[in-house]
């Protein structure tokens, strides 16, 4: 009987040893797995951040368009106009940077929405560095500007920053004033016509 008990004790001790060994092994494994999960969490957070950044960059790129034109000028040779178009909920924001001071920026939109800019149907803005403007008529084929016989009005649409060798216009036009993305841009003193193009931003009226 004693021998049987002794045998049983030995068997139980061996089983307990194995069981404890597996305990230790499984415990170490859970620690490793938890560490792996921690790393995966970090990786997911990092990927989510990267996605947010990419989405922001995409949104900036799709909601902002840049154009740089060089136009012949009567006095200055060629002038450079760097234009940035951005849409927000209510306005079309335009930044126009010129490589000379004291410009007058000529802008015309296709206000009647016929896909063209014409002298008799679409009126234009001549935005001055003194933060006032004239409404005028322009012929985009010849570049001819017909000024009204009145003093310029103070502008609620733009303000200008004038520096020694450059000038920047910050412009905001309400979206109600636009029908499509066709725009004519020129400057006073430009030889011939300015540039007629589509700024390619989509907006909902």
């Amino acid at each position, binding site marked *: 009987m004693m021998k049987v008990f002794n045998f049983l004790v030995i068997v*139980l001790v061996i089983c307990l040893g194995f069981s404890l060994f597996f305990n230790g092994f499984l415990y170490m494994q859970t620690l490793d797995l938890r560490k792996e999960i921690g790393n995966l969490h970090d990786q997911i957070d990092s990927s989510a951040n990267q996605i947010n950044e990419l989405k922001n960059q995409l949104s900036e*790129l799709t909601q902002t368009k840049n154009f740089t034109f060089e136009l012949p000028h009567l006095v200055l040779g060629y002038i450079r106009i760097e234009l940035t178009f951005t849409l927000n909920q209510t306005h079309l924001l335009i930044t126009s940077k010129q490589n000379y001071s004291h410009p007058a920026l000529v802008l015309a939109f296709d206000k009647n929405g016929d896909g063209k800019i014409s002298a008799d149907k679409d009126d234009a803005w001549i935005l001055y560095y003194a933060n006032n403007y004239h409404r005028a008529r322009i012929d985009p084929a010849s570049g001819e500007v017909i000024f009204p016989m009145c003093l310029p009005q103070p502008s609620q649409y733009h303000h200008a920053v004038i520096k020694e060798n450059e000038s920047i216009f910050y412009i905001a036009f309400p979206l109600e004033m636009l029908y499509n993305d066709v725009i004519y841009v020129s400057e006073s003193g430009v030889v011939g016509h300015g540039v007629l193009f589509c700024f390619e931003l989509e907006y909902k009226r």
Partner: protein
Amino acid sequence: MVPSKVLVVALMVCLGISLFFDSFLYIQTLDLRKEINGFTEQIDNLTGQIDNLTSELNDLTLTKNFTFELPLTLGGFLKIELTFRIVEENLSMTAKLNHTQGGLILVFDRNGDGKITRQDDGWILYSNNKYHPTDVDPLTGSYSIPYMLPYLSPYHHAEESENETIFHISFPLNFLNLHNDLVYVSSQPVLSCGVLFHFGLKVEN
């Protein structure tokens, strides 16, 4: 001396507890592995999203689109839709014109002086896949045509339909050897000058 029966009972209790923990830890490792599989799938999904966004972003940053309207000699406007893209060391361009007459005039600032002048070699690309070398005065829009038959063009091919012409153009960047992104674009039936602008891709050597 501990009686053998007590020892056996104590060992059995310990073994029971140990086996219980074994099974607990085993189930936990199964759960953790399942969780890891879920996270791995999530990461794969996020990586796919990142790849898509990156390729969309690359498309947007490596492709530039412009739509210009230029006055025609016979009245009306020529619409030119331009796409610039860098593809494997080539400047790849697509020009879609709502016109089927006359060639597309294209001049880059080949000598890198920051201007387009008569010193810069340009091309008049025709819809029959031939070209003439040319030079232009971007101020007046005048251009030269040599007294020779046009060459067969290795740089472009054109698709002509009833109302439009699409030019698919590809210039090796090594051949163009550009120092900047200035380009002059016009077409033969355009009144006065075309458009001088920066296409906004990095092409410098």
